[in-house]
Structures are given as structure tokens and as C-alpha cells.
């Protein structure tokens, strides 16, 4: 569905992504694990053009986007094809839960308001947040905010969800409800790229696990393989520390 070729991102002379090649198949759920600061989140941010990579290509249905020469239309296409779920939820603070989910439909996709709100309400019911439709983010718990964040991504009907450490900012009591919701979204064969430190979740949800270190994909494979008998000593050493 999306092929990434030679993706390179450099911060202040230091390469954070070192020529990443990755093919993402439709319906695939890929978990990215690895030590902090190895470019996992940067990879997701580059795909959504929240960062402009220095080099590389995205290939979508045979169309190639050169990341350095991407024009506004190509950037918008990538953003519409991908939906970002942020570590800190990043709900629009001036919008209610219902408006947060409907915002992209109304503003970006030009849907009529009523239709967008109907869709939003349906999603709110689905994620168990119907009674909070008119609540502003500031009055919601972290877990509730992240569920609305996931709802916003669901509304976009994006081919690829980019999920960036969805539970890292949460108090432990809210982690489960968010992971359960994400698991449910994943079970509907939503294509997902998930950066996570929750290894049990990665094992449960992913078809494929990538281990990244130093801006490179060190090793990848099915979760049974990566979590039980990884080939690379770096993967083994990382998993020993976190499991």
C-alpha cells in the first residue's frame, strides 16, 4: 500500500533516520519497538509530514513522492491517507469531543456539518464516549482524551493510522481502556503503524514487529519470532531490559 524508500532525517547534523526502507501492506498492523531516541516517532512524523525528511521516497499505488520536492498537494494527500494519534492526545482545546472528531470532516473534507456530527456521534457511541460529546478536552481524563484522539483518527477513514506511543503520557489507570480500544480498531483490519513501549500489547496486536535502533530497522518479523528468538544481539539485549 505504501512503500518507503531510503527515508533519511537529519537533526542538527545528526541522522535520526538512516535510510529507512519499509513496505506496508494493506491491513497490516506493524509495531515498532526499540530504545528511546532511535527515530521511531520521527518515522511516523515524517510519514505525516510533521517533519520534512532530508531524503527518500514514498510510493503510493505506484505514484512516487520525492519527500524533498513534495508540493502542497502531495503533502496534503499523505496527510489525508494517514491519521496521526499523538502521545499527548493533541485534541483541539477549543473544540468539544464531538467537534474534535468532526473537525477534519467539515474543514478538510468539506462534508456538511450535520452529516459530520452524525458520524462523530456514531463514533462517540462506538468508543463509549457518547455522554461526553459536549465536553471540552480540559474536562476529560487522559484516557478519555486519547479515546477521542483515536475517534478523530477513525473518522478520517485514513488508510494508515500512525499511532505514536498512545499510552506513554497516561496515568496507569487509563492505559487499559486505550489499549483495548486500539486492539478493537486493529481487529477491524485497519492498517496501523504503532510505536509502543507496551510489549504485551505489541505482541497481541501486531502482524509484524520492527526493532529500530540508531535510525535503522535492525530486525523485523512476526511477533512470535521477535519476542522469543530474535536474531540480532541488539534486539535480544533490548528485549532483556524491557521484558
Amino acid at each position, binding site marked *: 500500500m505504501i512503500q518507503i524508500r531510503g527515508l533519511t532525517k537529519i537533526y542538527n547534523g545528526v541522522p535520526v533516520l538512516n535510510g529507512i526502507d519499509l513496505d506496508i501492506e494493506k491491513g497490516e498492523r506493524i509495531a515498532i519497538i526499540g530504545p528511546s531516541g532511535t527515530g521511531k516517532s520521527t518515522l511516523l512524523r515524517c510519514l*505525516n*509530514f*510533521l517533519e520534512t525528511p532530508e531524503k527518500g521516497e514514498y510510493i503510493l499505488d505506484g505514484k512516487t513522492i520525492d519527500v524533498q520536492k513534495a508540493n502542497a498537494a502531495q503533502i*496534503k494527500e499523505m*496527510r*489525508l491517507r*494517514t*491519521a*496521526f494519534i*499523538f502521545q*499527548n492526545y*493533541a*485534541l*483541539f*482545546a*477549543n*473544540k468539544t469531543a464531538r467537534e474534535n472528531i468532526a*473537525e*477534519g470532516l467539515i*474543514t*478538510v473534507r468539506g462534508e456538511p456539518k450535520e452529516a459530520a456530527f452524525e458520524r462523530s456521534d456514531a463514533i462517540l457511541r462506538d468508543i463509549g464516549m457518547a455522554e461526553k460529546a459536549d465536553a*471540552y478536552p*480540559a*474536562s476529560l481524563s487522559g484516557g478519555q482524551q486519547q479515546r477521542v484522539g483515536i475517534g*478523530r483518527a477513525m473518522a*478520517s477513514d485514513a488508510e494508515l493510522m500512525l499511532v505514536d506511543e498512545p499510552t506513554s503520557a497516561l496515568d496507569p489507570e487509563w492505559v487499559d481502556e486505550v489499549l483495548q480500544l486500539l486492539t478493537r480498531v486493529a481487529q477491524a483490519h485497519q492498517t496501523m503503524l504503532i510505536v509502543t513501549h507496551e510489549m504485551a500489547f505489541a505482541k497481541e496486536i501486531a502482524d509484524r514487529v520492527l526493532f529500530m535502533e540508531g535510525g535503522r530497522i535492525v530486525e523485523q518479523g512476526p511477533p512470535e519470532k521477535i519476542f522469543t528468538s530474535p536474531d540480532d544481539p541488539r534486539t535480544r539485549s533490548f528485549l532483556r531490559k524491557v521484558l
Partner: protein
Amino acid sequence: MRALNLDYMLGLVPVLLKYLPLTLGMASLSMILALILASLFAIIRVVRFPVLDAATRLFISFFRGTPLLVQLFLFYYGLPQLFSFLTAIDGVTAAIIGLTLHFSAYMAESIRAAILGVDRSQWEAAKSIGMSTGQMMRRIILPQAARVAAPTLINYFIDLIKSTSLAFTLGVTELMGAAQKEAAGSFLYFETFIVVAVIYWAVVESLAFIQTRIENRLSKAVSR
């Protein structure tokens, strides 16, 4: 010390109040125009549009760096000497233009600071769902910045209302101009100007009352 002429003062109130609509009209129109202009300037500065940014900085520097009275004289008495088509401009229009430009320079800086104060995650979330810069500003960033900037902007509006009194130097008979004429006729300067002062004061106080309500409304999104 002589006694105050209370009858004169009471009689003066309705006479002067007839000029209040002009004062408030000039202030409101200038405020609206200044807000629009200031928002544009602030966005230009935040987004750093190449040439416009430098021009905006020069504009702000000039209008903050020179007295309002000098600017008003420049517009009303000065510019028509260079550009003859400006001779048709009347005092009210000149005052509105002067007040608009002057206050937009100040307000641009407050709005800019408020925009920069909006959390980075709000910009990223807006971009990530595919919003254009304009959509992001209008729907997400400016409404949040408005809440932060509101108290300062209302202070500028208060200052602006009082600054309309300078329009009398351009021959405009607004509140202050009318008072000036009354005082010149009655020679009761103290009585006249204390009445004017109280009228301005009452207007500003009622605005302060509205201010609280506006701020409460704008903060509904952040209150629990």
C-alpha cells in the same frame, strides 16, 4: 474657592451625551478595523512571510514609536499637502484611520505573543488532519489565542475610547470637542471637564463589566 454650578453641570450632561454615539462609533469602528489589521500583521509575523514580515515590522515600529497626536496631524494636515486627492478627507475619517493604524500596531504584538503561546501540539494536530495554514489559524489557533489576548485587547479598547478625544484637534465635535465648545461659552471650565471626565469614566467602567463576561465566555473551553 467658589461653589460648583451644579445646575449647569446637570444641564450639560444631556447636551454632551448627544456626542457620545460619535465617540463610541469612532472607537468601535477603529477597534474592529484595528483587530482585523492586527490579526493579519500577527499572522504575517508568526508565519514569517518574507517581504511582508519586514514591512510589518517597520510599520509596527513606526506606529509604536511616534505619538498618536503626531500621527493624526500627519494624516489630517500633512498628507493632503502631498496628495491632493486626500484634501477631501474629513476629520472623523482621518481620526478613524489614525486610531486604527496606531492601535493595530500595539495589538499585533499582543496577538502575536498569544498565537505563539498556543501549544505546539495544536498546530501539529491541525496540520496532521490536512488543514491548510489558513484553516488552522482561523479554526484552531486564533480562537485559542483570542482567549489569552482578550484582557490585553480590551485594555487597548479602553485606551482607544479615551484616545478618540484627540479627534477634537482635527476639528471633530465629538465628546471632548463638544465640551471644549461648551466651556468656551460658559467659562465654567472645571464643571465642564469634570462632567466629560465622569462620562468617559462611566463608559470605561461599563466596558470593564462587559469584559468580565467576555472573558468568562472565552474560558469555557478550559474550565472544568
